[in-house]
């Protein structure tokens, strides 16, 4: 079982948003209401701790749609364990969880 990482409320809400299928930084901003200057450093920190992983979209896919490639974030196994612990720690997150609209996978 991966070790549980203690998360701040902002990090936990970002992780929760990513686990709900919102995989871009700006989507996370819209859902959490946090500014970009908070969301991006938090994403980097989560990635560094191994709670989320990032992957660039294939250039060919982006070129086909005539748009720049995006970086996708996905929750890891360790991230899920930490998120479970965070949800227990922050009861408000638990209430937020069912109200979050599930986003279809890109």
């Amino acid at each position, binding site marked *: 079982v991966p070790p549980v990482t203690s998360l701040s409320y902002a990090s936990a809400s970002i992780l929760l948003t990513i686990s709900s299928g919102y995989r*871009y*930084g*700006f989507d996370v*901003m819209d859902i959490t209401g946090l*500014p*970009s*200057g*908070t*969301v*991006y*450093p938090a994403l*980097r*920190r989560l990635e*560094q701790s191994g709670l989320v992983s990032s992957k660039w979209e294939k250039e060919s896919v982006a070129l086909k749609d005539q*748009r*720049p*490639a*995006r*970086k996708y974030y996905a929750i890891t196994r360790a991230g899920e364990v930490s998120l479970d612990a965070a949800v227990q720690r922050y009861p408000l997150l638990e209430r937020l969880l069912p109200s979050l609209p599930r986003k279809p996978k890109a």
Partner: protein
Amino acid sequence: MVPRSCQFVVAAAAWIAPRAKRADWKREWLAELWHRAESGAPVEDLLRCAWGSFRDAAWLRANERARNLEDSFFHKPLRLELTLFLLAGLFCAISGAFNPSRLPYPNMPRLARFQRGIPFLGALEPIVDAKLISLVKRERILQDVATYRFAGGVPPVARVGWNFFDAAGAKPVLGRGFREDDPEDAALLGQAYWRTRFHSDPSVIGRKADIAGRAYTIVGVVPDASWLSVPRTCVFTPISPLMKFSGAIALLRPGSTIASAQRDIRRVARQHELRWMADAVELVPLWEDPRKRDLEFIFGVALAGVVFGLAFSLARRMGGMLYHSLLAARLFLVLAALGGYRAAVLHLLPGIRDPLWLFHFWVFLLLCCATGCLVARDHDRRCLVCFRRMRMPAPIGLWSSCIFDQPTTEYMCPLGHGALCVAETENAEDYWIDLDESWRELFAHSEA
């Protein structure tokens, strides 16, 4: 399409992001802004989001540096220097605790000691000229002047003028003080020494005792007077008028201040052609802890070392702000630690401040220079990103072509952050080559 203003903000923030990650970082931000713009977000919203890139870039920069430092540099030289500095602080604190400033003289507000200022980093030398002292006595600028010198030995012995304790206002706790006609073998014991060696036996007065390899006639016991017992003086004997002294204390006239007395002494010295002494002599209140001056001196030396080291490092045009700041911090820690040890040793060892004072002063300065050079040398040829020592020297260039293909030695960072090219000829300069992420694979085994 991302508005130009947002592109400009992201481009400006990109300068803060680490170079190795800059392209990737900028690409991600512009892609996100593009998608947001396409979804119909107003320019104000995009601009507000773009401003966040500064914080993101700053976080990346700080985090990378902190991680690199934590991984490598702090585990080696700087940690050692930090430990040395903290140990020096601890040593000074302990020596200070064992040597508290206790000055039980009743005349304390009017007592001062003569010092000769050395115009170098605020250092003070306790040695004063005999001519000046006799002049001050003759002109009656001060109410009383008493000379002293440390004779060293175990237990520490100090030779003091017969009027020393009278000037200080210290009354003997047993027996009597010195008289003008006392022989050289008369001795006053410090109270602590009397307690430990003679078990507070009052019958010691008038007896002969072997102290520091010499027979002395004990005439009295004086309270422990800490300023003189900074080097823990245990026994006091009279100083003969012909004997060379190393320092003097002064009792100011009632109503006179230290500043006015010092002014008068300097005026009189000038009138009697003692100009060099007139410019340098200082009266320092006896209640002022001499360690305060020592601290000023230590910080002076450490700061001078930092300024010199930084100037040298900047002149070589190597490294960024963090690189230089770390060099400055290392120099400061090492020099301050050295100074701390010196101050503590000076206060712990008896007599060292006296005849060998200047010798120790110069030895200390030489030691500081040597240590500073060692630190600067150690700081040299380290990676500008992770501060690990550069490795794998490889000669490149041609000695037969010193203009177009200058001979240099190339050193590599073990983690592949970059290469340092050290010029081998006078007409060239050292330069640094950043290696981007694509090179990291080659160095992956080093990181593991």
